[in-house]
Every structure is written in C-alpha cells, then in structure tokens.
C-alpha cells in the first residue's frame, strides 16, 4: 500500500468505523474501568480488584451466571430447532403460505414487555389456560403457573419471541437450496431425516450459526421476560446488574456488566466452534 493509501483508507473508514469504535469502545472501557474501581460515579475512584473479588464471592452472582447461560443456550437452540421444520414447510409456496409466514413472524413486532404481559395474562391463576385445563377436565382447580421456579415461562417467551427471527433467516437459507439437489439426494436413497442431516443442515450451517449466536446473546441478557414472568428464586445477570445499580453499588454492577459481555463473546465463540465441529461430521454418516 502506498503512503497516500495508508492515509486515505483510514480517513474513509473513520465516519463509520470511528463512530462505532468511539461509542462502543467508550462504554466498554468505562464498564471495565468501573469494574476495577475506576470512573466512580461518586467522584474519585482508584484501581482496585475489590469489586471483582467481592462479586465473585457472592453465591447470587454465580447462580445468575448459570441461570443466564442456561436461558441463552436453551432459548437459542429451542428457537432454531422449532424454526427449521417451519422453514422447510414454508420452503415451497402453497396457498396460504404467505399468511402463515406472516403470522409466524408476528412476534417480531411485539415488544418483549408486552409479550410478557400477554403471557402472564394467559397463564394467570384465573387465566385462559387454567380455565381451559379445568374445562377439559385435566385439572380439578386452578394452579399457580406464574413465575414458576423452573423458568419455563421465560423459556417459552424467549422461544416465542426469537423463533420468528430464526425462521426469517432459515427460510431464506432453506429456499436457496435447489429442488434438484434435494431430489437428487432422495433419488440416491436419502429419506427425510437423511436429507435434512446431510444436505439441508450443512448447506444452512452459517445461517443457523448466526441465528444461534444472535439469539443466545439476546436471551443471555434477558431482562423484561425475567422481571415479569421469571422465577422469583433467582435473577438473570441483567436483573442482578440493575439490582446492584439500584443499591448504588456501581462497581459491582459494572462487574456484572463486564461478565455479560464476556459471556456473550465467549458463548458466541463456543457456539460457533461447536457448530463447526459437529458440522465436520455432517458430510459423512
């Protein structure tokens, strides 16, 4: 590269990349700094490992880490697992396919908080679900389903909200596989499952990977579903961060914030590696 190019290329990239780096970078730097006792909101502040050591000693922190990871991973895989058959079903146009596709993607337009309220209404003590179960004679009386300790509500909401996103990505990827390729596999003896495993999955790996990572990062940092429909015996990392902030413990909140960022990055890397590793086996048996 010539000297002129060394000068021109960064200059051209500066408006876009520079802005991103400035905005994201400053937040990251401040969060990391605060987690080490710097940039105190109350003035002063000095480098210290105390916020980390104190937070890492708390059981509630580790429980939140485990819980958030669980929500992130389960939601990502459940959303993608549900989206695949739907994407395959909608692959070929049929009467009403556009309408069904639109309905399936509707959750994308509903804000998380609204979705959580709708869900709570459905499963509340005197909600539609309880009444339905009693009406068909499965349950004798209403049951408490809200804020269940197993966090089933959160998984349902996360999957409901994120599945359309995975569907959006996967539908395009699945449609790009030619009919002839799938027919050829069938002609060579591949049944439905073999065609999915040996043709569809490998040809949509990159899209599936992207869907998994994006959904995982979103679900990992879940706040709204957790606050309204989540279990009351544990907090998600976002909830814990807000909890520390509300107590005025900004340094501990920063530790949780940095943890979220690290888990998002590490989780995304692990998911990518995992898909690549199992993807290597797809062309074979």
């Amino acid at each position, binding site marked *: 590269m010539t000297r002129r190019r060394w000068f021109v290329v960064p200059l051209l990239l500066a408006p876009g990349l520079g802005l991103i780096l400035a905005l994201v970078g400053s937040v990251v730097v401040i969060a990391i700094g605060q987690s080490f006792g710097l940039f105190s909101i109350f003035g002063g502040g000095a480098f210290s490992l105390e916020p980390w050591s104190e937070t890492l000693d708390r059981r509630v922190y580790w429980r939140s880490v485990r819980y958030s990871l669980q929500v992130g991973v389960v939601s990502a895989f459940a959303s993608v697992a549900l989206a695949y058959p739907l994407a395959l079903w909608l692959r070929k146009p049929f009467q009403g396919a556009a309408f069904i596709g639109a309905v399936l993607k509707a959750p994308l337009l509903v804000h998380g908080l609204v979705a959580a309220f709708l869900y709570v209404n459905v499963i509340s003590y005197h909600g539609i679900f309880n009444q339905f179960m009693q009406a068909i004679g499965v349950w004798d009386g209403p049951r408490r389903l809200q804020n269940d300790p197993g966090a089933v509500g959160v998984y349902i909401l996360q999957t409901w909200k994120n599945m359309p996103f995975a569907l959006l990505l996967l539908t395009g990827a699945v449609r790009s596989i030619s009919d002839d390729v799938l*027919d050829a596999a069938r002609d060579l003896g591949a049944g439905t499952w073999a065609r999915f495993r040996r043709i569809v999955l490998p040809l949509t790996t990159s899209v599936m990977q992207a869907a998994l990572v994006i959904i995982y990062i979103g679900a990992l940092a879940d706040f709204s579903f957790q606050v309204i429909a989540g279990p009351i015996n544990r907090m998600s990392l976002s909830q814990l961060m807000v909890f520390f902030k509300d107590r005025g413990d900004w340094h501990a909140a920063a530790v949780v914030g940095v943890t979220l960022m690290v888990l998002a990055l590490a989780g995304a890397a692990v998911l990518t590696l995992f898909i690549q590793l199992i993807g290597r086996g797809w062309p074979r048996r």
Partner: protein
Amino acid sequence: MIGVRVDRLTIRFGAFTAVDDVSFQVAPGEFITLLGPSGCGKTTLLRMLSGFLEPTSGSIHLDDVDVSQVPPEARDTALCFQSYALFPHLTVRQNLEFGLIQKRIPRRERKERVATVASTLDLDTQLTKLPNQLSGGQQQRVSLGRALVMRPGVILFDEPLSNLDAKLRDRVRIEIRRIQRDYGLTAIYVTHDQAEALALSDRILVMNGGRVEQSDTPEALYHRPRSRFVADFIGSANVIVGEVEGPADAGIWRARTPIGLLGFTSERQPPRAVTLCWRPEHVHLGDGDLEGIVIDRSFQGNYTDLTVRSGDVDHRIQVSATPLYEGDRTRFAIEPERVVLLEDEV
C-alpha cells in the same frame, strides 16, 4: 438389468393433462429416448418413472413389480439431472459415495465402486475437488458417475447435455452410450434434441401433447414417419397432400399433388386422400418429371439447401453441390421408395 413396463400412464394437474394414457415397454439393456418439444410431457413422464410424481392413473412396472406408489428413494432407478444437481458442499468423492452410504454398502465395496467409476469417467484426479471447482463437462460426468455407482436397474437421463457446449455435448454423448453398453444398463433418456436422440437410442418415443406419437428405431422414425408431427420433428421434411390415382407397380401408387404426379410406396391399398412426405436430401436434381423455380439458396458447408417453388408449393431440396441460384428453373425427381405415406394423417 431390468425391464420397464408402463401401462396407460396418465397424470393431470387440475384440468391440464400433462401425460395422457401412455404405454410402452423397455427391454433390459435397451436405450430408449423420450423425444419431443418443450411441454410435451416427457420430463413429467420421466419424473413419474423416477417416483417424484405420482400418476393419476396407470402403472409402472420395473421387472414385473408395480412401483407406481413406491417413493424415489426406494426405487431401483437413478436419475441424471439436467442441472447435474451435485451436492455443493461435498467433494466429488463424497458426491459419488452419497448413495452408497444411504444404501449402507460396506466401506471397502464403496471405495472399490467409486474407484471403478472414477476411473471409467476419468475423474480420478478430481476426487478431492468441490463441484464448483469443476468444468461443466466434469460436473456432468460426476452426475453420471453418481448414478452409475449405484448400479441401478434403470438409469434415467433428464436432458443431461443441454448445459454443455456443442463439442463437449458430442463427447459426453459418446461416453454415455459407451458406458450404457459397457454396464448393460436399461436407460431412458429425455431430450428435445433430435440429433441426440437419433445418435444415442435403440428406440425413440416421439411425444406430443402428452401422448406418444410414434415409437420406433431411429432409422424407422426418420425414413418412415407416421405423422406430419414426427416427420417435421425428426429432421427436415416436405409434407404434401394428394389424391391417389391408382397403382403404378407392385406396392407403388401414384398420387396427384400440387407439385405434380408423385409415386409412393404403400403395402396396403391407400385411401383416396393421402398425406405424403419426403426428405429434402432424397430429391434428384436435373432430370425427372417435376419442375420448379429456386427461390432461396443457402450454402451449409457439406450441402446446399434450396427452397424450390413448384406451382404454389414451396419445398426444400438438399444437394451436396449445385450450380443453381435464385430464379433458376430446374427439373427434379423423387424415387417412389423415398416418398412415405403418413399413415396417421389419413
């Protein structure tokens, strides 16, 4: 090697009948071609044979076993796709092995079969490449190899040469025929290219509007077409209507036509009104009872194509060399043995 029997096969899509009451048989080891223009139903028929389409009525038997309801993955057929349909994420070796893995063929036999086919098709050095690293001809050979390696009872070809350039098409055509003979495969080939059909086939089924117009050897189809459609579709043909005057000799009849009196052969007593056909290359220029004026001359390299007007009828004559040009008057003759009565037009 297995035989195929198709009985009264019909498929309808709503009110449209794509294949209408088609019946034929293919002997073990025979190479037949379904030939016809776009939309005549030949690919639909092939897709029914491979199991991708379910017939509305009729049946398909492979070696006397009714497979009409058997799905493609369970049929003893292998299809070579027009688009090749190679698996883009798999290497040539993996493409070739795909079907064998599905059929749970042991690893050692798999390797042997792939090696044999790769060697036959000259793909030995391409086995580790992905399809997008191959030329069109190589991709076509992989597609063929992928079908051959399965050792199918019947191999089906859906216009496999249509995406190749002319030279490569000729080469692959010869290869397909050689492999089919070497392996003794029963083959059903779909094409709209009459030259391809004539060169490859033991027998050709000419299709039109979902029906088989004529089924015969390439030579018989060319020399003894039964309908105007077949005469026109297979090579060039002059077709004319006439009125029979009576017998001229044993098996030879005379008919009055707009270009003059024409002799033609017919083993049976022909009806009064007949439709006759002859090939442009079967006309002798320079002598004879017929005459016309050259209205167009087109030099084609190994022959010259003349359009001659006799009365108010234009017809074509092909000769290897001629001093005639536009506006020249000429006499010509057609041997009665070369004039064919189109029996289905009667």
